[in-house]
């Protein structure tokens, strides 16, 4: 296995090398675009190959042992779930780079592109790592770039406070997570040496080596840690302001890709390794995810600015993914993974459009906007697509994932348990999201025009990423099996 360089390693290395090259004085946007194109291509290849060979197994395995005790390997591989998320990452990265300005901020803007590349590399590494340690470590790689991006290139009065908030919040979350992960690997390592290798940590068939009580208490920090990263209620208050203040590409990458890491972690680590741990906290999680869907949904309705509203909406939709996970069956997890992909693309699309609007208008406050559909038809139409995708209109992948998750919750449910009741309440979220999205659309693009008449439509170069994301949402919405086929049957291994 080791020795040869796999395509996955290429994908992860390219942004890192490009970041280094930009840092050493290369041209920011040119190199970043090159990396984005290259990764888009490689990511598509990975996806296609995994699709062809089946998503249940690990492909492109590579490993380099870095430490013997505890066993630490720099190993990467991609099964179906990783391949889906890699594809998501490369697409969003491509779009994020593509919509980035030539000259961000005042200076040379190199830092901007270095940060973008590092965030992308962090996400890719985290999604492909076969080693618990690197799974964690790569995610953290994005922490400082995000901090810098929001602080330097962000906008709004609160950007500094927000940069702090997201950094500290995520820092705390990842420390809690780290505590949980250490407890996990210490407890689960097979006799004869500690190891970080997830496949070696996985309990074999038969009885779980840990008692239910132990699993329960290890699961808690994992849930909270991953939950903070995903903005699980009540740990959500970092997300919306951060996305509102961040430059559009960062918001796209963070809301679209990085946030999925927490969910990925739960699906990859917490649930398979600690199945009984989840059972103990299931009711709690159900309540919290209702907080995401209903409570945050209401908070979203009351937002007065587009950027904040989108931020909250992304928090809200996390609730559905958690619902899918909480179903604990392969339908639900398939739906959850599909939704991770769909939400990633759709929220990135929304944030990129929001960024374009911000560049054109003096404000994103709803009451000071109106009737823009007349003079910016392209933006109006694409925003319409994005908005309908986000509220789960059939034809878009978001709908396919939502409906899968709902069905999952009712699988063989002859009577109403807590899961089913929560799902029915969560269904109301579908109404809530329609309320705020359509209100926003109505406010911005429809009705009588209030000022900003001179604002121009989206320039031609920036249209490609927008169209690309819409097309991908439609393709995966019309043929969700492309994605679903890849989702490995993780439940079956429990």
């Amino acid at each position: 296995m080791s020795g040869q360089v796999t395509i996955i390693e290429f994908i992860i290395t390219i942004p890192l090398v490009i970041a280094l090259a930009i840092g050493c004085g290369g041209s920011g946007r040119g190199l970043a675009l090159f990396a984005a194109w290259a990764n888009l291509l490689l990511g598509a290849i990975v996806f296609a190959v995994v699709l062809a060979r089946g998503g249940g197994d690990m492909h492109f395995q590579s490993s380099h042992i870095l430490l013997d005790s505890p066993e630490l390997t720099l190993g990467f591989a991609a099964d179906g779930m990783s391949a889906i998320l890699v594809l998501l990452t490369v697409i969003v990265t491509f779009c994020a780079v593509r919509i980035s300005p030539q000259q961000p901020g005042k200076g040379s803007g190199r830092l901007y592109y270095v940060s973008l590349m590092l965030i992308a590399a962090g996400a890719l590494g985290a999604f492909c790592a076969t080693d618990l340690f690197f799974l964690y470590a790569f995610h953290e790689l994005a922490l400082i770039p995000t901090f810098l991006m929001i602080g330097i290139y962000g906008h709004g009065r609160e950007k500094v406070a927000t940069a702090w908030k997201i950094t500290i919040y995520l820092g705390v979350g990842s420390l809690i997570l780290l505590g949980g992960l250490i407890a996990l690997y210490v407890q689960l390592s097979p006799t004869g040496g500690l190891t970080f290798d997830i496949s070696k940590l996985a309990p074999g068939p038969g009885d779980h080596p840990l008692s239910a009580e132990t699993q329960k208490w290890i699961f808690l920090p994992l849930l909270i840690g991953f939950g903070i990263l995903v903005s699980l209620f009540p740990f959500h208050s970092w997300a919306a302001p951060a996305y509102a203040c961040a430059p559009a590409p960062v918001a796209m990458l963070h809301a679209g890709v990085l946030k999925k890491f927490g969910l990925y972690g739960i699906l990859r680590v917490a649930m398979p390794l600690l199945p009984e741990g989840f059972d103990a906290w299931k009711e709690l999680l159900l309540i919290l995810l209702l907080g995401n869907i209903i409570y945050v949904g209401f908070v979203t309705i009351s937002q007065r600015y587009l950027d904040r509203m989108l931020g909250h909406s992304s928090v809200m939709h996390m609730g559905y993914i958690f619902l899918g996970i909480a179903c604990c069956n392969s339908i639900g997890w398939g739906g959850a993974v599909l939704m991770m992909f769909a939400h990633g693309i759709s929220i990135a699309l929304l944030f990129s459009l929001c960024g374009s609007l911000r560049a054109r208008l003096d404000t994103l406050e709803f009451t000071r906007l109106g009737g823009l559909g007349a003079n910016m038809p392209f933006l109006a139409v694409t925003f319409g697509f994005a908005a309908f995708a986000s509220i789960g209109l059939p034809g878009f992948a978001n709908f396919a994932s939502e409906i899968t998750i709902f069905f999952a919750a009712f699988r063989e449910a002859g009577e109403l348990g807590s899961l089913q009741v929560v799902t029915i309440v969560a269904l109301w979220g579908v109404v809530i999201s329609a309320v705020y999205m359509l209100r926003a659309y109505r406010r911005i693009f429809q009705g009588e025009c209030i000022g900003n008449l001179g604002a121009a439509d989206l320039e031609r170069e920036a249209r490609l990423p927008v169209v690309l994301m819409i097309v991908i949402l439609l393709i995966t919405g019309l043929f969700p099996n492309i994605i679903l086929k890849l989702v490995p049957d993780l439940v079956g291994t429990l």
Partner: protein
Amino acid sequence: MLPYYLEIYVVILGVLMLCLELFSGRRSRSKIALVGVAGLGLVIGLMIFAVPAPGEDTQYWGIYHYDQWAAFYKGLALLATLLVLVMAREFAPVFKHYTSRDEEASGIGEFYCLPVFVCAGLMWMSSAKDLVTIFVSLELVTMGFYVLVAFMRRNVGSLEAGVKYLILGALSTGFLVYGIAWTYGVSGTFSLDQLSVSLSGDDLPESAAVFAFALLMVGIGFKIAVVPFQIWVPDVYQGAAMPVTAFLSVASKAAGFIVLLRVVEPFLSVASLRDPVLYLIVFVVCATLIYGNLAAIAQKNIKRLLAYSSIAHAGFLLMALPAMGGSVTVSGPGPHASIAFYLAGYLVMTLLCFLVLTIVRVATEGEDLVALEGLGKRAPLLAFAMLVGVASLAGIPLTVGFFGKFFLFNIAIQNAMQGGLWIVVFVAVLGAATGFYYYFKIIKAMYWGTAADEGEVAEFKVGRLAMVSILVLLIAVFFFGIFPGTLLGLIQ
């Protein structure tokens, strides 16, 4: 080659440098530093000939031990001193400003020599396994630091720091000696190897034994700056010259820790003393973590901030102590290895930060966070180096600082699972989280502070040697952060 030749060579080097100082002309003073760097480098090279076999413990006259730990810490001390000399050379302009314009009267040559002597003391300390040797070598180091701290004789801060360090240091020495006396009274021996044997006797006066331990902890705790004996740290760090601060925070702490480990281990291994000793340690750990991390939040002076951070780091290091003494089985690197790893990493990242800060200090004459503002634009490489150093101090993965913390948490969590000391883990997590805040304050100042946009732009002059050091340290932070095995291999 006999291992104690290493100390002898270092002392000879120091004497040689003093002689050079005496005979050299005005211009060549800075060459003395180069001689020191070269000499120390040579000694590090010579260490190859004195590599101890694993598990080997050679004794000389019952007071000088040479085992793998000793060798490791000796290397650490040499490396730290070498880098401090590089730093001191960069710092020379400021130094002259606060002593004398005249090279000869400024005594800068002596300023280069003193760290070398201190280094000899540090090296000796790492081989000390008996309370008398510990005491003498500790005093050698401390005395050197008294002078170093107060060296900038026209700088009020430096003098004030010197006096404070002197008085409080002497106070702690008093407690240490008193503690040694009581330990002797309880056990009848100064040797740490025999201590555990004689402490485990049936008729041990327990109260007296723990009293002696408490006094020893006072003396050693002062050196490694744990709460409640941290009080000198911020003032002294702030007042001392930048290279001295760096030296204090790295070398003094490392030496303190090896002594601490050697002293604590016999006490912990005695069943009847274990509980109170553990209790004390847990208290100290929690207090140190809380104090260091919280008090750092509001700091505006970088050196003061790093002073509190160094207190916090002492707290993290102490987390490994409760796992010692054999009642807890730890998988992965044990307490000794983890602490050694952490200290080595701490050396790399701290010296990286201080090197950058030294250059900034010379160029901007400021030591507040404001001085760093705009660094990201004016000197991207320096800013990046500082960023990496700070990130490592904060414990971001893929830097050496993360692994340091990781190994310690690894121990603490295993310890908690077996012994139930979850409070330590809890406080440490909170502490590390708080750490993000004040470390990122430095990053923030460098990258989007705006103070430096207006006004004159300071020029950064970086000597070639300093540049090379920065790059080497920078790479080391990442290298050991990704391949911790290499460093652990050196230790074990």
